[in-house]
């Protein structure tokens, strides 16, 4: 293994060693959402004519778990290394800022995808689902995880304390995921909130991802692809810039 592969391996090993907390925990949380919301709303909500509410819920929940865990991986790893001081071992190596980026985001994508797959595997016991356009599923899973891993990288660099990171998670990531249409189609919202939802990049990640399963969505998957892709590019540009200038890690 060369340098960046080692860092990718180490970052993956880090979450894998505490898989009970980093993988099993999030899968259990998603299952609770599925059981409770599925049970409570199954007979009351009909989003698409051909799809049961529980089946509608699964891709959204899987994507939400994938996004949250991709974010959690890079951000918590960085903040811990900063607070504990062991980031110095990485700072002393010849790895370039691109290497850092690829390794941290790569490990985040891996954790996000593992959790997302975990959610599907477990929900297969409760419902059945179709795979209308598998390629879109893979594309949106990878892009979404990369986007959130990159956002986590930025948040991890920026935050100096754990509570700052928690604030970022509670006041930015959580509202945007919950308001993205995980539990509903935005067509069921009043026109004003429908309009607002169109400015939320999370909406496009979930909507595009769901298209891969049902072949129907609120907006065209190509529009979702463009929005998510453009957001990913911008966020990556910011992250690379921060790493290159050593923002908060090299004075």
């Amino acid at each position: 293994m060369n340098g960046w592969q080692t860092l990718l391996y180490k970052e993956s090993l880090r979450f894998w060693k505490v898989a009970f907390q980093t993988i099993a925990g999030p899968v259990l949380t998603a299952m609770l959402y599925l059981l409770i919301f599925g049970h409570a709303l199954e007979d009351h909500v009909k989003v698409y004519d051909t799809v049961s509410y529980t089946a509608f819920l699964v891709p959204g929940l899987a994507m939400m778990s994938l996004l949250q865990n991709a974010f959690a991986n890079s951000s918590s790893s960085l903040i811990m290394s900063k607070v504990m001081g062991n980031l110095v071992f990485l700072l002393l190596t010849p790895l370039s800022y691109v290497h850092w980026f690829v390794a941290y985001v790569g490990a985040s994508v891996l954790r996000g995808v593992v959790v997302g797959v975990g959610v599907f595997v477990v929900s297969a016991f409760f419902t059945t689902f179709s795979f209308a356009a598998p390629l879109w599923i893979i594309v949106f899973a990878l892009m979404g995880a990369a986007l959130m891993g990159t956002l986590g990288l930025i948040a991890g660099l920026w935050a100096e304390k754990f509570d700052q990171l928690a604030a970022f998670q509670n006041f930015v990531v959580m509202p945007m995921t919950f308001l993205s249409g995980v539990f509903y189609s935005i067509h069921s919202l009043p026109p004003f909130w429908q309009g607002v939802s169109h400015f939320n990049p999370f909406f496009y990640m979930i909507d595009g991802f769901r298209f891969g399963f049902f072949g129907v969505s609120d907006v065209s998957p190509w529009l979702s692809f463009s929005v998510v892709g453009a957001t990913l590019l911008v966020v990556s540009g910011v992250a690379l810039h921060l790493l290159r200038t050593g923002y908060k890690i090299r004075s």
Partner: protein
Amino acid sequence: MAAISFQSVSKAYPSPKSSKAGASNGTFLALDSVSLEIEEGEFFGLLGPNGAGKTTMISVLAGLTRATSGSVRVLGHDVQTDFAQARRSLGVVPQELVFDPFFNVRELLRIQSGYFGIRNNGAWIDELLENLGLTDKANANMRQLSGGMKRRVLVAQALVHKPPVIVLDEPTAGVDVELRQTLWQFIAKLNREGHTVLLTTHYLEEAEALCGRIAMLKTGRIVALDKTSDLLKAASSNVLRFKVDAELPKALADKARITGRIVQFPANDALEVEHYLAAVREAGLVAQDVEIRKADLEDVFLDVMAQNKGSTHGVGGAA
């Protein structure tokens, strides 16, 4: 080619609000135009009081901090423009006792090797573990290790890529006698094999015993730089040392170095010795365990620091 080269390196930090020290524009200089060349194969000591700028120098050298002006090279590689080569040439043992709680000792050393692109480093890792007395801790998690053991792991981590230049930032702070001896034997061996060693320490006995050359740093400037033997020769005075049970009169105390009951005066000849002993007697005190010894590095150090008291600019905070 110099192993380490500092050329007019300055590092300015924004002044903390509480500090009055510093340049007028709200910054203070942790390093003030430092120039220094360390040749390949040297065992070099960097001494200075807390806040003198020793750790800042090492941080700039290691690329953890960027110099405000000037350039730093490791074996000819600029630490900014050619950072990959510079960092490959450098092994740094950080001062803080930091560790990664997710891994055991062997995993950490394997991972650290991997960052430098080194595969199959098992033989060298075993040798490091052996030489640092860590063999039976190889599979222990970092959290389970005592402070001294963690310190050994830091040293091993710094050496996994066999760096030609080794930097030790106060490696023996809070470390027991046994580890100090093991550590110095090992580092001395590496030095004999051709590794350049740069050491900062507050244990001046260690510096005197190990370092061929020494630089003394104060408020970001080099105030003394010479071979250890020449520094000692230049001091050349002897020291009168005795114990007293009561406090010395102020006039005498000002000239003395006092450590608990032990009182020491620089004394070049018999006349000065007699003068001090007479003064003690006149004060109604009894000098016990009187001896005269040669000046050591600690005397030289205190002397140099005292001579440079007039320094007016800010004191670095990065000890």
